[in-house]
């Protein structure tokens, strides 16, 4: 694999391979000294055109645990503010010698444009509303380990709840969960759904909550109200929030997931730390393992994970 830009582009075989590889990475991460020399001499550049501390830290940690060198490019202190074009920015950094770009951008499709301008690998750390494939990987990995489903998600009922229309997490998760065999349902008012989807849509969360294996809550952003997509956050919570009543109706084994950052009192109208099924912090932990897997898969060029020079 040259790039990791979307779940679809990677395909089911690569997704399974990366999840298996993440198991090894998780084992590395449990060691007292969680570091291997696998990517020594490789340089990974995090280019975040949009703020995202958690994703950037996760990628940086993943690269360092594989002994890669990391560079961080942040837009606020850069020449982008001096009118430099995206292409010139990328070509300039690439000229310093970069093996992989980790790209976050508010516009869908930027990782594809960037790949036209550099020979380095491009990892999509979130583009617009489009894709966030490492989030999908960590979500799959979290479900796989928490529900002990190493081979497939066949028969798992997963509801993705909330603002699917504007969510790159939802778009990537839908593809990845479906690829692994899960039955995915979308739960949202029509204003928060993509204009055209071939996924099953449920309009009342209460109709299905008792039969779910996973409930995946999306972040509900304040500005959706001013865009007339929902009348109020209060009404959103009433219809689609995880309230204590709904939490009680979830099956005992069901997982509660969220990509963060959470809006407490909105989509998460209950304290998740009091819910035994909450795996929200596991998601964060697993993020490092799956990102290590992606970096190693793209840059490891067949080297053994434990190999020393």
């Amino acid at each position, binding site marked *: 694999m040259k790039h990791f830009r979307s779940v679809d582009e990677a395909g089911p075989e690569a997704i399974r391979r990366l999840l298996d590889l993440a198991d090894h990475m998780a084992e590395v991460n449990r060691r007292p000294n969680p570091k291997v020399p696998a990517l020594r001499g490789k340089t990974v550049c995090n280019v975040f055109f949009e703020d995202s501390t958690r994703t950037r830290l996760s990628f940086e940690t993943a690269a360092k645990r594989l002994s890669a060198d990391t560079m961080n490019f942040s837009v606020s202190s850069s020449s982008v503010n001096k009118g430099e074009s995206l292409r010139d920015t990328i070509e300039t950094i690439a000229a310093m010698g970069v093996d992989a770009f980790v790209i976050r951008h508010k516009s869908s499709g*930027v990782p594809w444009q960037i790949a036209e301008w550099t020979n380095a690998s491009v990892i999509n750390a979130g583009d617009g509303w489009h894709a966030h494939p490492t989030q999908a990987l960590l979500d799959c990995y979290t479900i796989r380990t928490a529900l002990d489903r190493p081979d497939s998600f066949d028969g798992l009922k997963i509801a993705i709840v909330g603002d699917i229309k504007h969510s790159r997490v939802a778009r990537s998760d839908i593809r990845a969960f479906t690829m692994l065999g899960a039955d995915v349902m979308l739960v949202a008012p029509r204003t928060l759904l993509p204009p*055209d989807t071939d996924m099953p849509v449920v309009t009342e969360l209460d109709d299905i909550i008792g039969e779910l294996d996973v409930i995946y809550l999306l972040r509900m952003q304040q500005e959706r109200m001013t865009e007339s997509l929902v009348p109020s956050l209060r009404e959103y919570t009433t219809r689609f929030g995880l309230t204590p009543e709904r939490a009680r109706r979830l099956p005992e084994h069901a997982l509660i997931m969220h990509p963060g950052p959470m809006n407490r009192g909105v989509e998460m109208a209950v304290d998740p730390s009091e819910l035994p099924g909450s795996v929200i912090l596991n998601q964060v932990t697993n993020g490092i393992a799956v990102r290590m897997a992606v970096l190693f898969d793209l840059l490891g060029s067949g080297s053994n994970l434990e190999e020393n020079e």
Partner: protein
Amino acid sequence: MSGILITGGNVIDRTGERRADVRIAGGIVSEVGQGLTAADGEQMLDASGCVVSPGFVDLHAHLREPGTEEAETIETGSRAAAKGGYTCVVAMPNTDPTQDSVSVIEFVRRQGEAAGLCDVRPAGSITIGRQGQQLSPLAELADAGVHLFTDDGDGVQDPLLMRRALEYAADLGIVLAQHCEVKRLTERAVMHEGHCCSKLGLPGWPSIAEELMVHRDIELVRLTGAPVHILHLSTARSVQLVRAAKADGLPVTAEATPHHISLTDELLAGYSSLYKVNPPLRTMADVEAIRAGLADGTIDAIATDHAPHAPETKEQPLDQAPSGMLGLETALGVSLASLDMPVADVVAALSWKPAAIAGVADQHGRPVAPGEPANLTVFDPNVEWQVVPTQLASKSRNTPYVGLPLRGKVKHTVWRGSATVLDGVATR
């Protein structure tokens, strides 16, 4: 001026189709008939296997001068037009400054004459600065020879202003041309709203944004009696609305672009901004409806919406990149490759029908007959070819047709009695 003799071609004009040689002298067609022999010093143009037709007229070209000369100039745009078989182009008014005053109109016309490659007929804006607030001096501009008025790039959003514009225009013998797009429905939009945009995570550009304004303006035509030309139809429902308006006898005309009869929204899957255009590429069902609209005459004209953009602007992220693609040099090749229509009907949509809408029917789209102005196009309707970006006459390179098979290529263009293109190469 030395004459020209075009031999061996199949002449197609509004009177029909016939094998004939065409002699041109003194800027007019002097003789049409079989077996004409060259006179001394006459330039011989071989047209065997080719169609000889009145020159093409583009209702919709962005020549970018004044204001964005790094993308195109009137000279480079005129050269692209001549290579595409055009003898007349209507220059859209979204220049900087806007073509909303006689001085800017005169500037554009002068630059067109200086380039000397085709007639450049500036359109005027409906409102000052295309701001949608205050009417441009429509009568003053009409006196200066402007026939077509449009705020293209934007539609006139305010229904009251559009009604007033039509009422005022009704007595001036001019035509208002509308870019139909209700802006409130396309805020942030990047591509057609449908299955593809849902998958690609790109903000959708709903068909209804166009159709609402098509419908509104048809009803305003019904109310005021003033003619409206609807620019670049892109949806199946828009075609239906125009068809019904014509059946009611309303003075409504319409155009479609080569890209809306050949390309669909699925091309955005690779996130290339070459395919970002306003109105957006839509679905195959829409493409087929537009083709059918051209075939049954609902849509009068093929117009390019030639929209050059410098590479650095198109290389931005999709949501920031400007809309538009080149069209002048590929319109014929795309049209013949995409439309299942008699060649004569395609020529009608490229020549005399748009000439009538543009108000240039006294000079362009004329029958190929003695005494008529010698604005002619000679093209091979069967040759297959591909675009080579570096060979484009346009200053920009944003064509979506690289690698796609086109059919039909312009061989010679004659404008005001002299050749502007010979064997596919511009003469100046």
